[in-house]
């Protein structure tokens, strides 16, 4: 943790001045059904009150309704999705039922989980300016607010850059800056702290709280927040919202574990699938890399340098690193999508190890992209699974069951993100590759789904590479962890050495 640690909360509210900014009363929601695909009640009778200056973290596994809730509060749902919404929402004591999203932006602002879906212009300053222009603010005020907001989020140097060229973390800072400039009363942050480093988290949260903003932070993993911030917690579980202050502490902790919201470090309640528990040191060699180099045309700052890497059958390797550290480049090389400038990649072909061509690697490796939609092409689950394969009904229905897919005739494009992610796993499960690379799958999947997919893929006599930025996850699942930075492996951690390592950022600090 950087910076001074204040033991006392920066903000405090007095009972007399307490003011309800946001109240949700008996809120229930259900998405509309499609033929062949029914959606259950998403949540029922949610009650939640945010007073001025509150910092409340709502935890819930993926698809528990967090994003939907944020969009209901900001007036986007059911406006865009249809569905049945009952109950009431009060902002500053007034009901929002009749208000359009653009009439609410001065009261409640939000940052989307995926910043790419929210950015609409080609320059950072015009991006921040856009909502203020909509409100008809004076140019002089806008200029002042934009500069202050960029300064507060420490991205002043990016003012005239094209947002498309920013890293994930910088994009989130830009959207936070946008809220700073617009200055709404309630801030709804959807997984916003995910890609930010601890120093940025500390800085931004401190800024928000100094301005006495009211924050609703939605997260699928218990976020590490600075100790000087006094946070309230709520948990989504089976369509209900529980508040920590109303529960005995042990039931709250149980709830977190039951929902898979904490990585089960010492807990016993989460059991690993059997295939994951076995130590896998002595499987046959599947892949061997020697002296591989790769650099992108026109980018001199980055080059991939992997001198030696080998993988055995049944082995799980984690690769941890920040955006741009070369994780995905390595993945693309191992699956033959790009070709290294030099070096050798050998793969097992029956009895022997053989230097592999790009096409051989295409066939050898299954690369599960972070975005499952790039790997889904066809109108139904059945067609998708049997694409280019000769599947009998039996295998099909088994697979559908193993990956808990909603049915063989359902259009994948209509399924939830988690289900699409599971479908992606099922597709590669059936393709029986020898190496699976799983890219950042933890962000949209519950921990149970995640470990289920990993253990099923591992059964296929394959080796696995997990790309993640979550250290705890890699400690939990993998036999070995590589830390990558600027295209090179800077640190190797074996499973048994993992004891005290906590996060990626701690590791980097310890290393320097």
């Amino acid at each position, binding site marked *: 943790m950087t910076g001074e640690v204040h033991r006392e909360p920066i903000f405090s509210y007095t009972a007399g001045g307490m003011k309800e900014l946001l109240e949700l009363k008996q809120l229930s929601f259900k998405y509309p059904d499609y033929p062949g695909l029914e959606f259950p009640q998403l949540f029922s009778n949610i009650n939640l009150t945010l007073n001025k200056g509150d910092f409340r973290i709502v935890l819930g596994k993926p698809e528990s309704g967090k994003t939907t809730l944020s969009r209901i509060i*900001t*007036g*986007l749902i059911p406006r*865009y*999705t249809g569905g049945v919404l009952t109950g009431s929402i009060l902002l500053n004591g007034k009901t929002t039922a009749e208000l*359009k*999203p*653009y009439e609410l*932006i001065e009261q409640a*602002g*939000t940052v*989307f989980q995926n910043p*790419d*879906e*929210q*950015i*609409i*212009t*080609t*320059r950072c*300053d*015009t991006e921040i*300016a*856009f*909502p*203020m*222009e*909509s*409100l*008809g*603010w*004076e*140019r002089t005020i*806008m*200029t002042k607010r*934009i500069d202050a907001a960029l300064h507060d989020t420490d991205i002043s140097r990016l003012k005239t850059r094209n*947002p*498309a*060229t920013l890293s994930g973390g910088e994009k989130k800072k830009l959207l936070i800056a946008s809220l700073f400039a617009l200055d709404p009363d309630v801030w709804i942050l959807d997984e916003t702290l995910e890609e930010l480093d601890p120093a940025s988290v500390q800085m931004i949260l401190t800024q928000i709280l100094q301005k006495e903003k009211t924050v609703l932070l939605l997260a699928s993993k218990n976020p590490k927040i600075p100790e000087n911030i006094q946070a309230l917690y709520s948990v989504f579980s089976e369509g209900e919202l529980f508040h920590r202050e109303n529960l005995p502490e042990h039931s709250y902790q149980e709830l977190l574990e039951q929902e898979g919201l904490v990585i089960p470090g010492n807990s016993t309640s989460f059991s690993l699938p059997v295939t994951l528990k076995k130590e896998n040191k002595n499987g046959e060699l599947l892949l061997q890399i020697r002296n591989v180099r790769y650099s992108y045309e026109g980018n001199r700052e980055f080059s991939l340098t992997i001198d030696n890497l080998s993988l055995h059958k049944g082995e799980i390797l984690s690769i941890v690193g920040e955006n741009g550290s070369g994780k995905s480049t390595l993945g*693309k090389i191992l*699956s*033959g*999508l790009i070709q290294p400038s030099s070096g050798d990649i050998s793969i097992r072909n029956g009895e022997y190890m053989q230097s592999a061509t790009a*096409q051989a690697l*295409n*066939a050898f*490796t*299954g*690369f599960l*992209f972070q*975005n499952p*939609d*790039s*790997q889904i*092409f*066809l109108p139904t689950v059945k067609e998708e699974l049997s*694409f*280019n394969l000769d599947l009998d009904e039996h295998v099909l229905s088994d697979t559908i069951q193993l990956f808990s897919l909603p049915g063989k005739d359902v259009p994948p*494009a209509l399924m939830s993100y988690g289900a699409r992610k599971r479908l992606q796993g099922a*597709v590669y499960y059936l393709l029986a590759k020898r190496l699976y690379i799983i890219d950042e799958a933890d962000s949209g999947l519950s921990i149970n789904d995640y470990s289920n997919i990993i253990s099923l893929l591992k059964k296929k006599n394959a080796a696995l590479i997990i790309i993640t930025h979550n250290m705890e996850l890699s400690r939990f699942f993998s036999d070995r962890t590589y830390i990558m930075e600027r295209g090179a492996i800077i640190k190797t951690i074996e499973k048994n050495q993992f004891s005290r390592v906590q996060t990626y950022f701690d590791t980097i600090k310890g290393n320097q």
Partner: protein
Amino acid sequence: MITSTYQNGNSYIHKTDPRMKLFLLVFFTVSFFITDSISVTSLYFLFIMFLIGSSIGIKGMAAPVKTIYPLLIFVALLTPPFHPGGTVYLRIGSHILVSNNGIMETLRLIIRFTGITGIFFLFFRTTSIDDLILSLRWFHVPFTITLILTIAIRYIPHMIYLYTSVTDAHKLRKNWNSKEEKISFKTRIKNLFPVLVSVLIQSIKAIPTLAMSLELKGFGSKRPRSRYMTIHQYYSFPLQLFLLSAIVLTVILSAIL
């Protein structure tokens, strides 16, 4: 990331007000069409080539011609037979293939087409799309149109990324057992089809999310919009207005005389 043929630079044309450049672009294009005299259009042509040469360099002068030379060959071959007259240089039987009129007409078309290509090349090479959009705003093109353009340009790199990753994913799922050495036209389309479906579905699914994002930025509000960025913050239009009127006047005078 390719978003236009624009290349950053420091030349005087780069520094010229994009509104003036836009005006000259339209002005010269129209002039090329309404002027019949070869000597006058040659003058325009030389002026445009001078602008390219003096701002981008001599090499830049060849760039626009490179993109159109196959068509210029067609023009040279196909125009003369349709415009017989004057001294005949080549004939087969009773068909006049090359004559004085034909050559003059060919010259006129080549100068016109190369000139128009040159001025478009110069404009887009020295004007960023952002500046073009701001200029369009200044010429009272409605906000909705310029907004649509801005968002479209913001999404093009995203779409390119989408298309590449879907193609990559498709490669990893191909059936590698069947060895097709030659990829026929039909197989190409067959392989492309699922990729296109996937790209389209992802794009279509992005529409409501983008609409939500627009409304969260206050789009739809009935309040009058203010403007953070306008073109005259960056360029001093009145100073260059003098030069502009000089050029326009010269062109009009030379056309009349």
